[in-house]
């Protein structure tokens, strides 16, 4: 099945809390096509609408203009989204009264992964994220980074075709983050998912992505393909060169956004 994403003219506004003020337009006619099995990283200054973009793509927020299709199947105003999706939120969003393992079960129970495979899947991802010894711990007994890894386990356990990740590694130490990036690429290569990954870190984006998309003022400002062959080496100068370009675009976008904000 084709799990590419086609976004056309996506426009999203939030009503202003004050009565006579114009609505705040966050996404402004955004066009983006993501291929089936592609790994796309989205960069953009804080508040430019990255999380908003994922909320509309995931079907959490269906109040927008424009069109979103998954392999030709449109996202409708109500009902189940047309693909199986996993979402790693910017915050862990775990159920605090359930143990780590039961949190993952919660996602599995509402998915169509057959029950006899749950044990293997959980073993696999708990092992991978180094949480094996913490399966019976409750979220408040985990560190911030561990909680974030747990929500990664939860997102992966349901074997989604499309995976949305909102700055998933930003709260982790660099060593753990590096390990998890490699693992993520490995999972992606073996299971063939379409991944939309949001980050502030241009080197992370370059290392992971087939294509880096820089978002600014509700639109795509620039798309930068990363052609460095895989598997990639963290210290590859070719990656570094692309990352510098990404960085420069990102900074230009941020400055532009700032200028637009200070304009009356």
């Amino acid at each position, binding site marked *: 099945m084709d799990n590419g994403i086609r976004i056309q003219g996506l426009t999203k506004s939030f009503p202003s809390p004050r009565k006579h003020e114009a609505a705040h337009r966050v996404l402004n006619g955004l066009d983006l096509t993501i291929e089936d099995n592609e790994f796309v990283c989205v960069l953009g200054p804080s508040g430019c609408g990255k999380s908003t973009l994922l909320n509309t793509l995931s079907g959490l927020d269906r109040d927008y203009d424009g069109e979103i299709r998954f392999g030709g199947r449109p996202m409708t105003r109500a009902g*189940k989204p047309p693909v199986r999706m996993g979402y790693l939120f910017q915050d862990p969003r775990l159920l605090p009264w359930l143990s780590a393992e039961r949190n993952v079960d919660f996602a599995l129970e*509402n998915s169509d992964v057959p029950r006899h495979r749950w044990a293997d899947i959980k073993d696999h991802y708990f092992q991978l994220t180094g949480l094996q010894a913490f399966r019976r711990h409750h979220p408040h007994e985990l560190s911030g980074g561990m909680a974030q890894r747990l929500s990664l386990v939860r997102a992966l356990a*349901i074997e989604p075709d499309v995976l949305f990740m909102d700055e998933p590694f930003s709260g982790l130490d660099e060593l753990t983050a590096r390990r998890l990036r490699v693992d993520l690429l490995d999972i992606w290569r073996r299971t063939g998912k379409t991944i939309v990954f949001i980050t502030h870190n241009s080197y992370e984006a370059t290392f992971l992505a087939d294509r880096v998309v820089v978002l600014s003022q509700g639109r795509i400002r620039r798309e930068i393909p990363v052609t460095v062959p895989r598997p990639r080496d963290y210290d590859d100068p070719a990656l570094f060169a692309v990352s510098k370009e990404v960085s420069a675009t990102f900074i230009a976008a941020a400055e532009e956004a700032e200028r637009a904000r200070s304009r009356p």
Partner: protein
Amino acid sequence: MLIKVGSMIAALLAWLGLSFLFPETVLPGPWQTIRVLAENFANGDILSHLTATLGRVLGGLVLAMAVGIPVGVLMGVNRLAEKTLDVWVMVALTVPSLCYAIFAFIWIGLNETAAIVAIGLTSAPSIAINLWEGVKNIDTRLFQMARVFNASRWVIIRRVLFPQVLPYIMASLRFGLGIVWKITVLVELLGRPDGVGFELFYWYQLGNMQQVLAWTLLFTLVMLFIELVILQNLERRMFSWRPEVRI
């Protein structure tokens, strides 16, 4: 625990000390009170009064929760319900409990139903307010999480909303009990021929302070037992997942 025992002993000593300053008809000492209480037990009708009162406390509490919880939750999750109901909850809270008791006994009659209705309706507004505040604090981001993972509306209510509301329900149970038992005594003296409230009023009219204190002591001990031993343990067991708060 040691502090609690210590403060209780201190209170007993203070009571003992004060009882020497006043005549027995005004403030009998602890030993006399306990002796009277023991005599009452020996005479036998103490249990029937106590169970009558506890039955009303229970009935009133169930009614108060049955009315207060749905109203409070509805006000917490629905803005229209909040705007319509908040003034009425305030009105219901402001009406003195004595008025509820009088209305109930006049409209329904001098019977058990009227007593329980009076108790339940008096306490319901406080419980509603408690839950209303609580439900406003729940984490709506968890509902988004559940929706992304394809949870149905029913699953979300049962597994994401309910566990978040439960601590507030438990808190309002304890808090409601505190209100209900005070009102029960009042309602009993007004319109029931038995129960702790009736006995208190009876001995008050006879000017027998020993009996008044004996009944007060009995009732307080029973309620403290329910509150501290039963409810706190239940709560501790239910919310063992929570981090312990130490200040």
